[in-house]
């Protein structure tokens, strides 16, 4: 499956780079506008489980890297063994100034909370997401708190330091 997946990806999509698989992990980087189609293609190839969606802030390069980790639950092939088990990392980059991506909820419905989380912690917008409302945070943050330019200590000093003790 691994070799055919690689050739299939490179033949079907433009601008897709495949590296690996190394230690059972295949890394696929794709342009940000083709993410839903590439995910749909991978899903059809048997990678039917979106394990997580993650984000990295590369502040020096001025971009966010959004990562989708795919794996498969169970295959009916008789030759399927632990050595052949495959994880696929699908990476894409969005500019840091106006980070926006197409939502992949149509392909994987369980991406919904991950996208909400990335939206509130990194400020990446997901087009077509039905409810991008806060998931974990209770307060409004000027800079989303997981960005590298969020000054945690200054924020703590300002927020929690300003609350006076009730009695001593």
């Amino acid at each position, binding site marked *: 499956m691994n070799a055919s997946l690689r050739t299939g990806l490179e033949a079907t999509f433009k601008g897709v780079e495949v590296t690996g698989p190394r230690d059972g992990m295949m890394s696929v980087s794709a342009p940000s506008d083709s993410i839903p189609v590439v995910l749909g293609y991978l899903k059809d190839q048997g990678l039917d489980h979106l394990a997580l969606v993650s984000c990295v802030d590369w502040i020096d390069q001025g971009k966010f890297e959004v990562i989708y980790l795919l794996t498969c639950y169970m295959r009916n092939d008789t030759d399927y063994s632990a050595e052949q088990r495959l994880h696929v990392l699908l990476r894409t980059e969005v500019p840091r100034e106006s980070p926006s991506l197409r939502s992949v909820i149509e392909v994987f419905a369980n991406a919904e909370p991950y996208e909400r989380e990335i939206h509130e912690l990194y400020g990446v917008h997901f087009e077509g997401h039905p409810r991008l409302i806060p998931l974990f945070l*209770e*307060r409004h943050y000027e800079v989303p708190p997981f960005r590298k330019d969020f000054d*945690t200590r200054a*924020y703590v000093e300002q*927020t*929690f330091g300003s609350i006076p003790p*009730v009695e001593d």
Partner: protein
Amino acid sequence: MDRNQIGKWLRNPAKMANKYSLHAVYFCTGCGIIEIPPVITTRWDAERFGVLPVATPRQGNLFMITGYVSLKTLKAIIRTYEQMPDPKYTVGFGSCPINGGMYWDSYNTIKHLDRYIPVDGWIAGCMPRPEAVFVGVTHLWTLIDKGKADGYLRYRKNYAAYRRNQEMLFGELDWSPLYPVGDEAEEAKR
């Protein structure tokens, strides 16, 4: 029953009964809650000290905050605390409720629990051993004996200040004040 304590029982039976029936609210926050199952079950058996876990805050009078308190948890803690009947005792368990602990520079974890609800005692450590819970409980007995475990009275007295601190963090709170504040409090005094 300890014969030496008969005098105390006769003088203030309510206080003594209170002291030996600490019902802990089984409220889990942070990593400290992992210490509570061994404390209440056979290995350390908290029932020797009269400490039992209860299912709902309306039946409990001991509230242990067992670890770091995120903002979302703090909301739940305040509501739970306000539902408990008087007299109630709060114990901060572990170093995180005391001063933030290892989360001292975290953006979403409160640093000083006693600025939002009154706390009667602290158990320091990261994590405290189950034995430390019993040392804490016996200290709490002494405090109750001396009338110093008066967090619920301080909450009533300084409610305006506590409520102000809570509102500084959350903005508008979506529940009404437990005690009258502001103009209402003035009217109540009259």
